[in-house]
């Protein structure tokens, strides 16, 4: 482990680490908080909850988002729910079990201390959200309702219909609005961070582009928090929102923040299959559907043929001719195996020729049994809005025929490397939520992203950042007219000028689509040495093509969505390259990362703890130079590391 990778995990028993750390953290008095400024970039669950909580504490906060309103952040699209160790169901749940499930679900590639803390604060998140007026689902007695999610055997997921992310975000956004009204937070919508400014080795501000006027603006602070989500859109087609991007995180990487485990990307098993070449976005169907839906493909290839030719319907295939392959392969968890396992199993069946739509890339998710067992009304209460959404998109009713689903890129577990305090390798720079790497290891369990975003934003960052700021209150406001800020702005201006000067013939999207193909084919659900090496080469070629042939129309000083996309695509090249490099060095199969060379005889993922039980943290070495790999060993002191088993 290099000196730069000090994870700062407190000593002592697991259950006491967070309490111990909190007691060590220096406090900032209220009159000093007023002198301190914090920049928060991103307004999803992490960013909004952090900015609101920091503002409430008395700090001066500036919050930035690329959308017209903080409420548009992509957290809003999370459907299924949020986990918390409340044990309201009396099913023997506990902080320890939530911790254990999360570590196991992440295939033993996350930090024990961070994950335990996440489980520890989970219950307080639900309390906070209910107090904010979030209308979680209720039992008839008025108590909170729960449901199950993949990879666990208890019922600990809280939900608000299929719109849990929306409701939680509206809660955090309301808390943010309250602080904006109080004057502690200033909001900058339609602003995009394009660079991080470092002064004397510390994060001191950002350069942002006003997306309406096109002007570059400088903003200074005593600390910067990155909460800009993941980089799933590197693949072009994903369940991420169209504007979700990895640029803020990548700019931090280029300024010295290490980027950890970039190859850990989650491929979600239940998305609506790709329908054609014109598509630019994939739609997720909530994992909660796997509570009652059964996944299958036909046993006989002739039935597959008939389905593809529309000669028969799925509902006409008799029970004995169906292969409920998850129930067959993983009897203990059945349809509720974790996402990576379910995705690979779907791919396995489709690769074997059993895919059920014209493209051969779809499996069935069937509710016929659930409707029989529970009745129409109860199924409608649980999944009505999802059924409706599916029907709107596909023009097929899940009440009559099973849904068709296929895996798609959904979430990135990798992200900016942070220590226990959520501070990056750059002092004064913090990363929270999906933007950091810390809690999900190689695979994230369902309903845990919302939990992590809010844990970081409400309860962890507002405490830990105080330790850094307690040494900063004597420093004056950051002057944005210094050479560091001027140079950073000039560099961004040069980037923009370069793009407009190319005047080629290819559109940004057409090149992004090509990048997506390279990524999906070589850095997707199954990866091998040959494909990854090839991907690195192909990305470099495509990048060259981009700088020679892209056409960015319009000008800088106007609302220009093509320029926005071009700037983001520049960064996606860099991220794609980093993902491929990371996947290449990790010669094991682990969570969402499946190396073809590393599998059991039954085709299950084979982890290699002896050689790869570490966090891979990449250091930027300059343009055109290979990044340097640093390793943070993962130590499991409190749980026994085992092979993940969802079979019995």
């Amino acid at each position, binding site marked *: 482990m290099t000196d730069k990778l000090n994870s700062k995990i407190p000593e002592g028993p697991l259950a006491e680490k967070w309490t111990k750390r909190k007691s060590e953290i220096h406090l900032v008095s209220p009159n000093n908080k007023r002198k301190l400024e914090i920049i928060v970039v991103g307004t999803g669950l992490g960013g909004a909850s952090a900015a609101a909580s920091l503002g409430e504490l008395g700090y001066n906060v500036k919050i930035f988002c690329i959308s017209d309103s903080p*409420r*548009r952040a992509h957290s809003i699209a999370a459907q299924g729910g949020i986990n918390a160790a409340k044990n309201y169901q009396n099913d023997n749940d506990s902080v320890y079990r939530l911790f254990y499930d999360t570590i196991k679900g992440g295939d033993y590639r996350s930090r024990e201390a961070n994950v335990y803390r996440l489980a520890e604060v989970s219950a307080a998140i639900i309390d906070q959200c209910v107090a904010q007026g979030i*209308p979680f689902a209720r039992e*008839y007695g008025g*108590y909170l309702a729960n449901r199950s999610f993949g990879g666990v055997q208890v019922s600990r997921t809280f939900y608000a219909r299929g719109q849990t992310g929306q409701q939680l975000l509206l809660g955090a*956004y309301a808390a943010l609005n309250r602080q904006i009204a109080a004057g502690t937070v200033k909001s900058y919508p339609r602003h995009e961070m394009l660079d991080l400014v470092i002064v004397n080795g510390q994060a001191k501000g950002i350069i942002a582009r006003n997306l309406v006027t096109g002007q570059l603006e400088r903003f200074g602070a005593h600390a910067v928090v990155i909460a800009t989500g993941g980089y799933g859109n590197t693949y072009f087609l994903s369940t991420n929102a169209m504007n979700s991007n990895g640029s803020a995180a990548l700019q931090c990487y280029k300024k010295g923040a290490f980027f950890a485990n970039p190859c850990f990307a989650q491929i979600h098993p239940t998305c609506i299959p790709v329908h054609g070449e014109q598509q630019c976005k994939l739609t997720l169907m909530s994992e909660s559907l796997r509570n009652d839906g059964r996944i299958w493909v036909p046993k006989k290839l002739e039935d597959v043929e008939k389905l593809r030719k529309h000669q028969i319907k799925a509902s006409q295939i008799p029970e004995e001719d169906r292969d409920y392959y998850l129930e067959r392969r993983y009897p203990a968890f059945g349809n509720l195996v974790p996402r990576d396992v379910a995705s690979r199993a779907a791919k396995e069946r489709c690769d074997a020729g059993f895919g059920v739509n014209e493209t051969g890339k779809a499996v069935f998710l069937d509710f016929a049994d659930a409707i029989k067992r529970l009745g129409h009304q109860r199924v409608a209460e649980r999944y009505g809005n999802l059924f409706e959404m599916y029907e709107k998109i596909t023009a097929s009713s899940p009440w009559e025929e099973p849904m068709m689903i296929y895996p798609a890129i959904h979430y990135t577990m990798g992200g900016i490397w942070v220590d226990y305090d959520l501070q990056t390798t750059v002092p004064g720079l913090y990363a929270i939520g999906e933007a950091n790497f810390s809690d999900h290891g190689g695979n994230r369990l369902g309903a845990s992203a919302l939990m992590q975003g809010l844990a970081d934003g409400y*309860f962890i960052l507002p405490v830990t950042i105080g330790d850094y700021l307690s040494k900063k209150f004597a420093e004056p406001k950051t002057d944005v007219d210094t050479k560091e800020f001027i140079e950073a702005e000039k560099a961004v201006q040069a980037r923009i000028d370069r793009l407009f000067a190319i005047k080629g013939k290819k559109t940004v999207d057409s090149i992004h689509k090509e990048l997506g193909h390279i990524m999906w084919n070589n850095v997707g659900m199954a990866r091998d040495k040959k494909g990854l090496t090839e991907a690195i080469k192909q990305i470099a070629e495509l990048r060259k093509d981009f700088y020679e042939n892209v056409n960015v129309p319009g000008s800088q000083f106007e609302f220009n*969505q093509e320029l926005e996309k071009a700037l983001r695509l520049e960064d996606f090249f860099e991220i794609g390259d980093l993902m491929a490099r990371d996947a290449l060095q990790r010669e094991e199969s682990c969570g969402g990362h499946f190396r073809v060379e590393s599998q059991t005889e039954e085709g299950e993922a084979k982890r290699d703890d002896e050689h790869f039980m570490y966090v891979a943290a990449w250091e930027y070495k300059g343009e055109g130079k290979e990044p340097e790999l640093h390793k943070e060993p993962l130590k499991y002191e409190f749980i026994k590391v085992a092979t993940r088993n969802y079979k019995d």
Partner: protein
Amino acid sequence: MEFNLKIWRQKNAKTKGHFETYHISGIEEDASFLEMLDILNEQLIREGTDPVAVERGCQSSGPVSFDHDCREGICGACSLYIDGRAHGPDDHVTTCQLFMRHFKDGATITVEPFRSAAFPVIKDLVVDRTAFDKILQAGGFISVRTGSAQDANNILIPHDKAEESMDAAACVGCGACVATCKNGSAMLFVAARVSSLALLPQGRPEAKQRAKAMVAKMDELGFGNCTNTRACEMECPKGITVAHIARLNREFLKAKFSD
């Protein structure tokens, strides 16, 4: 499928806008309306660099700007007024969930921004809806400090009340209600928030203040009055009903009477 698209083009807030007509073909039935616009934009960018097209007199204003993000009908960013209806001809959907199978092959489709005095145009089909944020900042929250909440199950909420509150909380803040209302009123938007919180015990302590402050802010920002035409309810992509406006009115009156 092929279409003629009559689209509102406006360089910025200060210039006058106009319609331009484009022809587009080769669109799949299963394509969404926004995917169709993506394809149009690809075409417009290519034409802009095509010397033959420029020689033919093609005066491209460049790609069409429009707000969009999640494309799953939940973020509320998309905001197109299509053939005279907010979010277009399908019911209970946002623009991103509108599919081309709802149009006749060969049809001429008119696309405009959401128009309202309170939503100035930024460019083409993009409008400024920060007025909505300002209304919510005036009181659309419950004042609870982070970390001060009691155990969640100490607040019992009957199943049906929670469901009703959720019906109102489903608002995506798109502004279709304002764009549809002949008065440009934001009553349905304000009502959704006021009602959702008023139905819950946690929301009661600040209910009066909230209703008064949000309504006052709405008036101040140039939104019109409600004259009960119920047009907003018809076009709300989330099916939020005017029953919530009735609750807002009750809350508002109660607050005024107790002044």
